[in-house]
């Protein structure tokens, strides 16, 4: 059990106590009352593992468990193409396990570095091949964790901050990358929403978002996306789009500021921009300490220790979960996910990849 749950046990019970479920009935899951959050598809603590296919199940398990126990309703996770390499495979268990636990997943189609994905998306043949494989692997919903309950939905986001990470201007992003990718994704899986990329979450991003709008971004997505790392951006984002917007990253530097940002600013973002459906807090975990992350993860003799680095925010999240539970016992994570490896890439997944030109290479 994660150390975080000590806080849950100590938290006051909700005012509206509910009756315990009848004996033999499955316990309800932890209520998903804490919104959305970004999560990295971390697969190893060893930096030298970047060139190796290692995916350490304990790391995946620890992050998915934290998501569940902290009561998040949705995650945004990079699905790094990396020519269907280890980073791509690492995203599979995160997406499947989260959906199985009832969390909605926004799969960010973007490479951590390099142009492999954009190169694939600019050519019709590889675009169709790569997207078809991604849709085939991530699209089908997993069975619900614990055998009952609902399964989280799925949405795509096409690249991340393209001017910053790729050097591609907003108009070219819309015309050369988003438009054909959107059409292909909708052809392959029309029921899955497609988000445009957000741009960097400072004042530079405002002009880039306007340039995207001029280039017709709303014709090629179901939702637009913003990143908000400053309250000064809010007046400029209000009314910018006609389609609903998701703020796919928002956070603040410094653990001492996290609670106020999550508790006060995230609602303010929704209120002041106006058409925001979701706000994804940044982030559950990143390597840099005392910056944006809530949790600190450390390797410990084949296991992972989890510590709430952003203590005030973690306590706030746990208190909200406890209050929403109303004293009703909830299903323990381990009961729902006895073995995270059940969500790892299957032989069918690997066969799909092997059938692509990338797999054959």
């Amino acid at each position: 059990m994660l150390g975080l749950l000590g806080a849950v046990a100590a938290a006051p019970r909700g005012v509206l106590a509910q009756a315990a479920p009848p004996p033999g009935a499955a316990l309800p899951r932890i209520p998903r009352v804490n919104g959305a959050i970004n999560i990295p598809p971390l697969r190893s603590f060893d930096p030298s593992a970047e060139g190796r296919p290692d995916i350490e199940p304990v790391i995946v398990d620890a992050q998915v468990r934290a998501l569940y126990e902290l009561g998040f309703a949705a995650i945004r996770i990079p699905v790094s193409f990396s020519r269907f390499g280890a980073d791509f495979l690492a995203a599979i268990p995160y997406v499947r396990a989260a959906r199985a636990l009832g969390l909605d997943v926004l799969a960010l189609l973007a490479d951590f570095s390099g142009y492999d994905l954009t190169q694939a998306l600019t050519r019709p043949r590889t675009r169709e091949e790569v997207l078809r494989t991604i849709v085939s692997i991530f699209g089908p919903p997993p069975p619900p964790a614990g055998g009952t309950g609902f399964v989280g939905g799925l949405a795509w986001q096409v690249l991340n901050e393209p001017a910053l990470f790729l050097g591609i201007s907003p108009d070219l992003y819309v015309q050369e990358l988003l438009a054909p990718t959107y059409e292909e994704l909708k052809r392959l899986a029309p029921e899955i929403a497609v988000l445009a990329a957000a741009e960097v979450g400072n004042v530079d991003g405002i002009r880039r978002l306007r340039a995207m709008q001029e280039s017709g971004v709303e014709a090629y997505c179901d939702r637009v996306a913003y990143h908000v790392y400053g309250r000064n951006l809010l007046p400029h984002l209000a009314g910018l789009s006609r389609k609903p917007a998701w703020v796919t990253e928002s956070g603040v530097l410094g653990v001492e500021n996290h609670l106020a940002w999550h508790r006060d600013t995230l609602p303010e973002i929704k209120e002041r921009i106006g058409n925001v459906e979701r706000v994804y807090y940044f982030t559950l975990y990143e390597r840099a300490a005392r910056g944006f992350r809530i949790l600190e993860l450390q390797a410990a003799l084949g296991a992972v220790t989890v510590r709430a680095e952003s203590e005030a925010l973690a306590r706030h999240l746990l208190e909200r979960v406890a209050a929403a539970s109303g004293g009703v016992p909830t299903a323990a994570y381990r009961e729902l996910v006895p073995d995270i490896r059940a969500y790892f890439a299957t032989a069918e997944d690997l066969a799909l990849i092997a059938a692509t030109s990338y797999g054959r290479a």
Partner: protein
Amino acid sequence: MNEILAGLLALSLEAPRYPLPQPPPGAPPPSGVSVADVAYAMSDQPRVVQHAGTRIRLGNRMFAGAAVRNQLRGLTLQTHRLDADFSEELRQYEAGLSFRAPRFRIGSRYLDPPEGGPHDLALEAGARLGLDTELTAAYLEEGRSAPFPSPYREVSLRLEHQGDDGLELAVRGTRQSAPSPAGFSFNRYRLESLAARGWRASEVEAELGYERTLGRLASNEVFGGARVRVPLWSRLLVEAGTRARWEPGLAVFEHEHSGAVSLHARRIRLPRTGEAAARSIALAREANRRGSNVRAAHDDDGRRALRDRVSLSPEREALQGWAAALHEAQVAERLVPLVGVQVSGATDHVRGARTREYRAFVGAPWPLGLPWRRDEGAVPFLRLSYVYRETLFDVAPATVDEEATLEVELNREHRLVGLWSRPGRTPLDLARITATASSWRVAYVFTRGR
């Protein structure tokens, strides 16, 4: 002593010399049919493309021209009052027609793309309010295919005044109606002012503007810039410029700064400060008094076009002296750069790119001489220039472009130009997996009366 002074005076008045003989500046245009321009260029980009063009003077009535560039074929016609051109390239047709009367002018341009694509249309009308002042109204329509809901449209009104000391003042108001492929249009209003003039031996240019976008992309932006060119110790030219674009209360989105220094073989006279500037405005005024409806120019090509235009006037004989004086001053004041460097930097926050550009050149005058030697009779002969441009991104790899040019002026009218360039791979090239290759271009240019 008097003989020495007379000899020095004669030396200073000696016409500039070139390796090839040439007619003196200010000579009247040849009668009958004569060649005014010839240009031939061959380039490898990446396949070999040829470009040939010529312009013929038909007596004192008109210029007629023809040009071929790869698949493009074009014809031009110019009289004192009429300008017309027509071109075709892969079944895309473009035609332009304009007419100028003493107090007004009208013009239009139409582009008809192949297979029924949306056309482009430009209309312009100008009213001459005075010898130096013109009011111009323009309409532009650029076709947009589906899913754009409408063409791009722009209307503008421009008031321009020219005066002594190279003075130019202009105010322009523009209304743009820009469509988005997402199915909506937005309006953008812009007011900009431009000013330039010579001041003693220096030149100053400045611009200031305001742009307001309405609707869902609402913004208020301000842009401004200034450029100054100052000769020091008569042969050293120092240039500096800056330009910025920002949204008050939000951020600076673009800015650029540049600085340059160059050494010249003879005394520097900038285009807006010397005799040629005065001659240019004097010729334009005199031509306008006689109904030509033209504007002064402060660059070589513009001044030649002005002289060509008035040479077709029914009043050409009366204007010939003015035109000749302009040509002589223009030639006498032409810069003869020997060596120079320029550094410029720009940041574009929308693209997320920072550009650094370094330019350097060395020139050899004719007659050949040591670069630090002053020679008031020198003319431009050889010039080798090199440009290194790098575009930096936050995460993406930098793009490096290089370009080198060798220019040989056999005389004022005959030039040979060789160009080599190596464009770097942009982020979009990396995304598209398109390779870039170095290319070259060689050209021969004959320009009568340059």
